[in-house]
């Protein structure tokens, strides 16, 4: 016989919980979900920002398939992503390893590397625009002082994308370093001590302890870096405006140009939907094949 009768769970009992999360969901609905749905609907129209709004079926998507500029933007975005993701993740990890100590120097360098991340991308890009200036830029002055020939940097179609990637790396490296650093700090010290006692050298400790223990961090960084790479816009808009000869135009840059400069909001919405599908696909693949749930036995 039970002394206390267990309270029967009632539907609606979690009212306070729902109340507390309501503001977030209202925000999500109004600012993220609704505009997303509207963009999908607009992608089937010839909406021109003003009066024209007719359903045209899949015409925008058909036009995308034969649009050389969209293909160029897609290719450029992929090139940017490859050039950005691999160095940012590997250099971020390297910096985190180098600066994981607690000395004063480490703290100064950590702060130094993180500083660019706190300024806006537009400001950072404007600063680098001056640095890259072929006529009076700082970089060419350094090259000249060292006896090298000046470069045309952002005005060189073969070099412009590399310059854009470099600016992104310069700005965001501190963030990758910080996330990796927090992951490294979370690895129990006794694992390294035990490995040392077992005679493992530094590389073996890195390979067999640090890398596996950092997998959740690496997974998180990879996903967020992938998404930010596919959404690259500000640095492109400020540094090159997609040029020279569209060598740096990206998907989001095309969305902006088509939507707000050329009045083709329906077409721009179709590009947005394609971008959303690409990002969803990449994220799904990451979740499927990336080891996002880390259950390394450290007991």
């Amino acid at each position, binding site marked *: 016989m039970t002394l206390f009768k267990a309270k029967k769970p009632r539907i609606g009992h979690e009212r306070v919980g729902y109340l507390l999360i309501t503001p977030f969901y209202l925000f999500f609905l109004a600012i993220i979900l609704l505009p997303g749905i509207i963009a999908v609907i607009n992608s089937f129209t010839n909406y021109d920002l003003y009066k024209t709004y007719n359903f045209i079926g899949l015409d925008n998507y058909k036009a995308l398939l034969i649009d050389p500029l969209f293909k160029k933007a897609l290719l450029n975005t992929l090139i940017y992503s490859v050039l950005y993701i691999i160095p940012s993740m590997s250099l971020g990890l390297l910096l985190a390893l180098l600066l994981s100590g607690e000395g004063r120097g480490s703290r100064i360098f950590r702060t130094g590397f993180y500083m660019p991340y706190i300024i806006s991308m537009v400001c950072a890009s404007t600063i680098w625009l001056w640095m890259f200036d*072929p006529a009076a830029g700082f970089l060419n002055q350094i090259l000249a002082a060292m006896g090298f*020939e000046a470069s045309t940097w952002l005005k060189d179609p073969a070099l412009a994308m590399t310059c854009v990637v470099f600016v992104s790396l310069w700005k965001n490296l501190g963030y990758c370093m910080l996330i990796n650093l927090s992951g490294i700090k979370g690895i129990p010290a006794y694992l390294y001590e035990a490995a040392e006692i077992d005679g493992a050298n530094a590389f073996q400790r890195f390979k067999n302890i640090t890398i596996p223990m950092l997998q959740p961090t690496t997974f998180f960084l990879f996903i967020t870096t992938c998404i930010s790479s596919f959404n690259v816009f500000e640095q492109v808009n400020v540094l090159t405006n997609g040029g020279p*000869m569209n060598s740096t135009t990206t998907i989001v840059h095309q969305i902006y140009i088509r939507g707000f400069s050329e009045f083709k909001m329906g077409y721009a919405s179709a590009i947005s939907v394609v971008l959303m599908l690409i990002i969803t696909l990449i994220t799904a693949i990451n979740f499927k094949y990336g080891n996002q749930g880390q259950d390394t036995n450290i007991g």
Partner: protein
Amino acid sequence: MKKNCSKISVLLVCLMLLGLLSGCGNGPASSGPQQEPLSKEEMVTTDSLEESKISDEPVTLSFIRAGTDEHAQAVYTELIEEYMEDHPNVTIEYQQYNYGAELETKLNTLYASGSAPDIVRAPISTIAQRAEMGQYAALDDYIDSWAGKDDIIQAAYDVGSYKDQRYGIAINIEASFLFYRKDHFIEAGLDPEKPPTTWEELHEYAEKLTVREGNSVVRSGFSIPVGQGHTVIIPFARQNGGQLVDIENNIPVFNEEQTAEALGYLASFNLDNLIIPFVNNQDQNPFELGKASMMIGTLSNYNTLLASDVEWIEHLMFAPMISRETRSGFGGCQIMFMSEESKHKEEAWDFIKFLFSDDSVKKLVADAGATPVKTGLADEFLESYPDIGPTYLDALTYCEGMPKVEWAALFEKYLNIAYEEAMYGQKDAQAALDDAMKQLEAEMAE
């Protein structure tokens, strides 16, 4: 003698501004039948009537200006403050944007979202499209009842007209011509009193004036942009007899032989490694940084140089634009428009009238290098700009602006694509223009 010169120059200004008109659009629109000048009493009555329509309630006007020149910004800010002091119930929110995509994007967004600016100072290229879309308000009724309307030069009305309606009044008419450095000419063994006058001379001078370190150009002979170069190709095409746009049939024709030859000629400056690359409206012209010997400039450029206090200003000289079959330069018109959607049209019009008052125009002429758009101010203009003034006034006679067509923005876009492709040698000039033409026609057909 000097007095005679001044008189002649007053006459010249009027004639020259009228000359510019031919290039700034598809012919002058009618400004209505000429009216008899109003008597003093009539003027007072008209102005009183206008004043009575203006609300005493607090009003906020938004004013967007195309252009980011610091000098002009300072003058406009000063004028706005002055106006607000005289009209305590009026607040003017002022914003400025770069020409081209930045301005177009901002205006598109504001008009689409129902937040149209009350007053816009924009270039002539915007008039046809925005008038057709009902964004700019027709000002005929306002102008007709304005006591001071006859003090404005006719060209200022004509460039702001479209399909027989006056949508704006030009507050500045820019003209471009050759800027060059006397010291560089002497250094290169060239006579600074004999600037280049033909295409061949220009190229030859540019070669002599270009300074390289190894293969890198550290000082270009003739500074032209590698991107957004429609303001360069348009005058060179016209110099070569090119038409660019068939206004009568309302179609683009910029893949004509003359334009292709002009584009090929301009591309040779980059392909022959004679320039330091820069993009118009995005980068600073190397000439302004002391890294070029010649450029095509305007009064606005001159004011920027004065403001930046460059040490070589004394070596700066001016010459008319180059000629071939004919002489031509690019002329931009800055026009004051009012939005059709504005809820405060009377107040907006009152502010526009204030900008065209004698004091405002004098200030704009003296401090911002604006054109004297009111009759009788040419003397003051020449006093303010004794060095550059005569060349500028001369340039007004041959400078032409963007074609006044509804598809001006598309025309500019595709001409710039062709320009860039040719400048970088990706395509030869004719192929670049042909491709751009096909794309423009396809987009116009849409």
